[in-house]
């Protein structure tokens, strides 16, 4: 049971990590006794691998867009379940605040980048600008969608 669970936890690691280490760790899980601490340790390792994504050998750019796209269906699914309306309200607030903070975060990046623009390469400016556009665009989309769905869920709970 614990061994199966431990194997499943490997799915939560970043893809680059899995490509590099998963077969070795999987083999290790099969060869050694798997207990609850093993599973918890692997879960902690998965969080660590995501937090230190750039340390993973062969890791490409952080899959931010994929994560944001993955977040979109969550409020939709939850909003269709009336019993989860309170949770939806809390989560949409969090998402909206997160999206606003993301936008504000890019303002500080812009404030730091602008003074160095004359010396910066075209490629660097293009990458930063594209990242800012993508990030703010996706955040706005998430916030807008989340707020719409949250309102819809609350509307269904109102007096008939």
């Amino acid at each position, binding site marked *: 049971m614990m061994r199966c669970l*431990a194997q499943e936890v490997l799915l939560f690691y970043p893809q680059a*990590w899995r490509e590099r*280490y998963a*077969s*070795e*760790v999987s*083999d*290790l*899980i099969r*060869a*050694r006794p798997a207990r609850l*601490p*093993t599973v918890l*340790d*692997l*879960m*902690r*390792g*998965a969080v*660590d*691998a995501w937090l*230190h994504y750039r*340390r*993973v*050998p062969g890791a490409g750019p952080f899959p931010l867009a994929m994560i944001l796209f993955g977040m979109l269906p969550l409020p939709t699914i939850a909003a269709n379940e009336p019993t989860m309306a309170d949770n939806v309200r809390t989560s949409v607030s969090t998402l909206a605040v997160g999206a606003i903070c993301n936008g504000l975060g890019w303002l500080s990046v812009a404030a730091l980048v602008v003074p160095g623009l004359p010396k910066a390469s075209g490629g660097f400016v293009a990458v930063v600008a594209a990242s800012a556009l993508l990030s703010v665009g996706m955040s706005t989309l998430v916030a807008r969608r989340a707020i719409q769905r949250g309102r819809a869920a609350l509307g269904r709970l109102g007096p008939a």
Partner: protein
Amino acid sequence: MARRTQELGRFTDVALLVLISLAEGQKHGYRMINDIEEFSGTTLEPGTLYGALMRLEERGWIEAVDSSERRKPYRITESGRGALHEQLTTLRRVEQAGSRRAAWGPA
């Protein structure tokens, strides 16, 4: 030790154990866990071990050895030996200071 391994965070001690284990020869994860358990009494779980291996590889202190086997062995590099030597020197200094102050060892 402090300066070179500061960024290893909670993996500092595990990284030291891994470097000591690999100092006597290349090993794969399973053998490393058994060896570390034997010489230090510390049982490492896979998530912790591979968190440390990832960081050590990133710093170039260890490297994976090409192998056709499913279990990939790792070996310590020259810079890894240097880092290990530095860490052990610091530990020795700490141990001497501790013993002196606690009056257990030679005055």
